[in-house]
């Protein structure tokens, strides 16, 4: 009875989404206020019923209702409560339910916080979100329902994949989906603007905070995934260029470009077409990622159980939304062209170049991800495109971008008065190079890889450059808008991130050793002494734990434990690494196999500066947060900004 209630709730949510979409879009078209007014209750209703369905699935997991196929395949009575709850989104069907819930949540937030927007515009935005809701709710109901019964019920569940049994499962997917699905808000704003035929600075001002908020979640979600892979899956790697990772990175790059392009559209009313196109691209790439991960056309380390009929359904959704919106774009764009100039060196120029390089970077990842599929589909042979390719080619657009960021953020609108800051920038660049040389040659004792010094210099330059304005203004006791401060913080974070990449890529040390209790090994001046092993009983696994004492010279630092876990149901061995964190490095110990004669294989790793990769990402996201809190986003529509509603008929 309980799961049927879940299905029923989803059916009601589907009908309400259809109503939301119909009354929003048709109501705005016919200019019927009562129709448009009815959209808000529909949005609230969708949220209530999707939440209800989600709660039911969660309840079924907690109560171990193995008469539900999805619960039986993804949990077990011995699974700890926290993982029972997180297992709701541990596989394809439930993660789609999370997708829908987050879409409904975004729609609810838009409905709640856009009361100041003109009614027809608001109705259209919610109408577009409703259409997306219809698409994904029917996808869930008709191809991937998590509520299907298993008859007869299983006596015991097959357990959650042990790789997923980690606290990160509780936060990484929800955060990532907040970002992924959040791109639909900017998309809805763009489609609503195209339907009304008018885009003005006010439109950009409304769209920006939503775009930045989604982008911030996406930033954090990707960073969490990378951190998770680092300590759980990858044995010290933090990015693998797997199709799943690429699928989340492409919308991030497009969203980053969109944020910058929106700035120009807001400040200068320029590049309107381009901004619309980017809003569509960001959402398209997010849908494309969903398709690639769930359709089974690509092979990935963590692809969902895939099946071509699901693939066809998502492909249909993808083409409907993308080709539909791009066709609308093609019809509207010619009338949206704007005039307005700026000098060769101006903030507009820098932002346009930034957009060009970000789009090139996204295009590059798309090409690399899809090329094996293209060759496979046309029987041209099987190839692999992996980290060696991406690591190399990704530098082509991103290194110039790093240099541009450092200079561009000081360029003024229309014409850059860079001369006043030029001297200071040159000084910072010189200082950055000097510090980079001290770090590489002095501290690490070698120049590293060919691009190590370039990476450190670029990173330090961007960080220094980002600090100019906050420091100057603070010294002069001048205020600073939150938008400007947010920008400075985010750019500073990019620098920190690049410091992390440069450090770990250039100076990491890995060593596989065989040790018995009492033996020790040394890397990078750190001594690892194998103390012994213990048996450990986990809630649903048995583990062998190795204790390793770490010291630097004579100075004892810490004792690490690393486990080899054997899960009771899915009898796969999982290694749990021991990591010692310090401000300048991680030390990483992982237990391998027993080699006989009391010896064990063990992997020791020295990961200099690796933490700055995620710290940088968090600072970037923090910058986004500060920017969304800018005062001007909370100002209501004022008289000098006529609402787009009046322009509807004109278009």
């Amino acid at each position: 009875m309980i799961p049927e209630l879940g299905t029923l709730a989803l059916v009601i949510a589907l009908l309400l989404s259809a109503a939301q979409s119909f009354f929003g879009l048709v109501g705005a078209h016919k200019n019927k206020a009562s129709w448009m007014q009815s959209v808000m209750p529909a949005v609230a209703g969708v949220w209530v019923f999707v939440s209800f369905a989600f709660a039911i699935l969660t309840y079924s997991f907690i109560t171990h209702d193995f008469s539900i196929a999805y619960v039986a395949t993804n949990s077990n009575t011995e699974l700890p409560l926290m993982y029972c709850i997180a297992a709701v989104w541990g596989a394809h069907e439930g993660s789609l339910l999370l997708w829908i819930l987050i879409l409904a949540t975004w729609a609810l937030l838009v409905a709640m916080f856009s009361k100041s927007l003109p009614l027809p515009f608001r109705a259209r935005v919610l109408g577009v979100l409703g259409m997306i809701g219809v698409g994904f709710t029917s996808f869930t109901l008709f191809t991937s329902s998590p509520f299907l019964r298993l008859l007869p019920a299983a006596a015991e569940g097959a357990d959650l994949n042990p790789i997923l049994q980690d606290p990160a499962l509780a936060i990484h997917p929800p955060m990532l989906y907040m970002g992924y699905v959040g791109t639909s808000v900017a998309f809805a704003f763009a489609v609503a603007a195209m339907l009304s035929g008018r885009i003005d600075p006010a439109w950009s001002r409304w769209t920006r905070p939503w775009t930045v908020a989604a982008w911030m979640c996406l930033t954090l979600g990707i960073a969490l995934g990378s951190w998770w892979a680092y300590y759980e899956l990858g044995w010290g790697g933090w990015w693998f260029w797997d199709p799943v990772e690429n699928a989340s990175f492409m919308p991030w790059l497009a969203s980053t470009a969109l944020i910058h392009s929106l700035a120009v559209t807001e400040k200068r009313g320029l590049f309107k077409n381009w901004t619309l196109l980017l809003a569509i691209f960001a959402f398209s790439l997010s849908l494309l990622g969903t398709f690639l991960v769930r359709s089974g056309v690509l092979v990935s380390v963590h692809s969902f159980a895939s099946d071509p009929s699901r693939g066809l359904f998502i492909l249909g959704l993808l083409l409907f939304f993308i080709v539909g919106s791009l066709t609308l774009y093609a019809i509207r764009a010619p009338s949206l062209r704007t005039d307005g100039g700026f000098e060769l060196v101006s903030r507009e120029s820098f932002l346009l170049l930034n957009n060009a390089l970000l789009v090139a970077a996204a295009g590059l990842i798309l090409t690399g991800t899809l090329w094996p599929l293209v060759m496979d589909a046309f029987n041209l042979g099987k190839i692999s495109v992996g980290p060696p390719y991406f690591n190399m080619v990704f530098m082509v657009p991103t290194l110039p971008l790093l240099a541009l960021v450092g200079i561009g953020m000081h360029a003024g609108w229309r014409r850059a008065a860079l001369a006043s800051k030029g001297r200071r920038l040159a000084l910072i660049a010189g200082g950055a190079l000097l510090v980079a040389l001290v770090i590489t040659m002095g501290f690490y004792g070698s120049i590293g890889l060919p691009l190590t010094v370039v990476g450190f210099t670029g990173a330090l330059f961007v960080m220094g450059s980002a600090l100019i304005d906050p420091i100057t203004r603070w010294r002069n006791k001048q205020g600073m808008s939150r938008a400007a401060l947010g920008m400075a913080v985010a750019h500073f974070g990019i620098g920190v991130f690049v410091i992390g990449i440069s450090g770990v890529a250039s100076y990491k040390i890995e060593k596989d050793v065989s040790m018995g209790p009492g033996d020790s090994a040394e890397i990078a001046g750190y001594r690892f002494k194998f103390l012994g092993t213990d048996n450990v009983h986990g809630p649903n696994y048995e583990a062998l734990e190795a204790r390793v004492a770490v010291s630097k010279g004579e100075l004892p630092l810490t004792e690490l434990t690393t486990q080899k876990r054997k899960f009771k149901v899915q009898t796969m061995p999982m290694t749990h690494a021991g990591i010692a964190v310090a401000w300048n490095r991680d030390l990483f110990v992982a237990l391998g196999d027993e080699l006989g004669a009391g010896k064990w294989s063990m992997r020791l790793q020295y990961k200099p500066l690796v933490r700055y990769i995620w710290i940088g990402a968090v600072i970037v996201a923090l910058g986004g947060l500060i920017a969304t809190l800018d005062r001007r986003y909370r100002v209501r529509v004022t008289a000098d900004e006529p609402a787009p509603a009046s322009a509807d008929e004109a278009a």
Partner: protein
Amino acid sequence: MIATRRWMVLLTALLLSAGAGAIDTEAAFADAARQARYEHLTNELRCLVCQNQTIADSNAGLAGDLRREVKELIAAGKTDDEIRQFLTARYGDFVLYNPPLTARTLLLWAAPALLVLVTVGAAARVIVRRSKAPIDADPEDMV
């Protein structure tokens, strides 16, 4: 079809058992240069059973065998290219994460240059055009 699918299930099971990552059980090269070549090579070769991991990262039995093979070939004095050749003769280009430049991957390898040229070129055209347009002064959007 069903048999194939079952076989896939098995493959998946193999893949999952490989989720733990790999640690070499044999001794490293005494020669640092050879060890560096070994690490470089095993990090750009694809484990075939696990579908998307390098043989350095995978704990699958086959990945271990391939690491041993690479190690022995290096010890036997083979060059990196000869080792890649050895593996592609058996497994095809699929085993290389760094796809070789052929007529079929020409566009893939040209992509970075092409994409940057096209996007930056387009941006440059717009910038030049706009720089010739009159600059309006709109007091509302002064910073």
